[in-house]
């Protein structure tokens, strides 16, 4: 099925006749010096706090507590300045591998489930006509504001005992508490509003001409969705996947309430949270812990970068 579509013309044309010096054009366009300087400046500013943590995580406890981390930069080659003890202690935390696997077992399904459900809903909100689409959509977006702490107790009650009105069981007693599906469902629910919001925005801004011509060619909604919209929405799907994975991976509260904090079920964030001691004596261990937990999400981010590709729409238009 080939789609021939004229270039979208809704965007304003730039005012013509503006005079521009050659050096200005070169400097800003295509990564010239101005661009580079601004980017480096912002990156450095953003990195400074993180640098403090990373450096501290490699310093022995006494030094970390008594001298500023910048002093380590003055003597970078003195071996007494550095240690991997913090990492050793963090990794030595009882059941680290177990907690890591648990985190993975929680995060992966909790990321892909909302995407699937939200993609369909987002498509419907974007390209299907039905009564109440504005109201329902805005309701979904409005649910973003619900603080998750307020939802914990009601959901916990549902999981533990089911719900009934006047003796009629409307939500079965599944005794889900402490099981993985409990957390998946909770995370899916908490992630749906943002997923629907982001995906609808992206899917809705696809050129309508593409959708229209597909309809003219006789494709039904399911086909349009599956064969056209989803491949084109890959950047948005990837973006949301990153956020959801990140949020679930670093989450403490939902995992604790619905899965528990015992040795066999706890996730990585819970296992490492105890490192500092409730009176904060071992705060330096948290620096190592923070770095460790950060690695996987960053890896995910990096690997999904290739989906943020320029000109996805333009390419598909001609195919």
């Amino acid at each position, binding site marked *: 099925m080939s789609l021939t579509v004229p270039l*979208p013309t809704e965007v304003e044309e730039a005012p013509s006749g503006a005079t521009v010096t050659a050096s200005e054009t070169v400097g800003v366009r295509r990564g010239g010096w101005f661009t580079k300087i601004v980017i480096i400046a912002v990156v450095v500013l953003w990195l400074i706090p993180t640098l403090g943590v990373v450096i501290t995580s490699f310093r022995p406890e006494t030094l970390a507590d008594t001298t500023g981390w910048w002093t380590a930069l003055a003597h970078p080659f003195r071996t007494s300045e550095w240690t991997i003890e913090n990492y050793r202690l963090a990794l030595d935390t009882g059941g680290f591998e177990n907690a890591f696997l648990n985190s993975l077992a929680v995060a992966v399904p909790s990321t892909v489930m909302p995407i699937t459900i939200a993609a369909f809903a987002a498509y419907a909100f974007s390209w299907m006509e039905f009564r109440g689409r504005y109201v329902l959509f805005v309701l979904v977006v409005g*649910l973003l504001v619900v603080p998750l702490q307020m939802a914990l107790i009601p959901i916990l009650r549902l999981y533990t005992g089911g719900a009934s009105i006047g003796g009629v069981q409307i939500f079965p007693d599944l005794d889900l508490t402490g099981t993985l599906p409990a957390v998946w469902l909770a995370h899916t*629910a908490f992630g749906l*509003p943002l997923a629907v919001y982001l995906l609808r925005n992206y899917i809705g801004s696809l050129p309508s001409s593409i959708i229209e011509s597909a309809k003219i060619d006789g494709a039904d909604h399911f086909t349009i969705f599956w064969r056209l919209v989803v491949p084109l929405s890959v950047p948005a799907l990837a973006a949301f996947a990153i956020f959801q994975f990140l949020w679930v991976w670093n989450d403490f509260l939902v995992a604790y309430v619905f899965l528990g904090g015992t040795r066999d079920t706890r996730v990585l964030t819970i296992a490492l949270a105890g490192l500092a001691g409730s009176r904060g004596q071992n705060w330096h261990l948290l620096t190592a812990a923070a*770095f460790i937990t950060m690695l996987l999400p960053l890896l995910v981010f990096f690997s999904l970068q290739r989906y943020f590709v320029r000109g996805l729409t333009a390419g598909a238009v001609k195919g």
Partner: protein
Amino acid sequence: MAIDTEEPTAPPEPGTEESAGRSPARDAVTIGLFALGLVVGAVITWVVLAQALDYMRDRDSNRLLVIGLALALGVGGIFFLFWAMDRLVNMLPRDVSERVRPYVYVGPALVILAVFLIYPVINTIILSFKDNIGQDFVGLDNFKFVFTDPSMLRSIRNTLLWIVLVPLCAVSIGLIFATLADRLRRGEAIAKSLIFLPMAISFVGAAVTWRLVYGFRPEGFGSNVGLLNGIKLGLGQDPVAWLTIRPWNNLLLIVIMIWIQTGFAMVVLSAAIKSIPDEIVEAARIDGASELQVFRHITVPSVLPTIVVVTTYMVINAMKVFDIVYVMGSPEANQTEVIAERMIQWFFLSNNDGRGAAIAVVLFLAVIPVMVWNVRQFRQQEAIR
């Protein structure tokens, strides 16, 4: 799956032909069968899920197998569900099916949201009219408290500051950074990853990070390991208890959230910027437009819907901020309270369910203007489309 272009029309009933009219009786039968199909489908799904559920909830099951199963069911299963429901809808008469189909697509999301979010919202609203253990009704007492208590009023003032500054800064910086990074020949992925890094640090990590910036120790209690005080000492000045300086400490905390959230804005806006067709931008440049003009007249209008989305999300997030404020010092003593922090304080720490719920309700109401704005933007965009 081959694209089947004759699909949309209902399959012909056995023994009859598609004639000009349809009898109401047959319509009723098809709709009845559709409903039955839904029920049967639901039951079968339930049984399969229950078995899989039992396996997955067993703590001793092999975790990787559980993940695989969850993926199969979660993605494959859900996808199959949609596909099956779509097929069922196809059985209906044409005009009915097109009216029903959108609800089938939106349905699962709505059901999950209804159970997990809407039900707690209703629960909270009811609680807000009750007393501190959620038993007797006290009318509007809790709301009176919300709007008269000095700490609550401070929290409202502070929250306003948060919801203005955080989106403003995070979105502007994110947009500019995304635009500039898009033009880099190399290093774009790294630059973006470094701005994104703060989002990857768990909240606990972020707290430690910023304690190492704002930390203070008075004379004699150890040396100052916080960056700002390190700078002050280096300049020969006395260290300062940054987080206790009222009211500037609010700004210091806001900086933390901006630091974290800009990555989000940047990633989303970057995806949007990348879908602006190259040809338009090149055409404008050939016409002699300066980069600033391209930015103002092409980039921004093209990604405006995304800017609305990101800004909305930032505003709502800023309304809900709690951890940052709670962990960096004592909110009440330092007067850095915000609405969500007050809600947690009252609901969980002072054990007053009624007041906590009332504060949550105020939060729900506060999001309404944002939603209204979204509806307006939504309609405008659709009008252009």
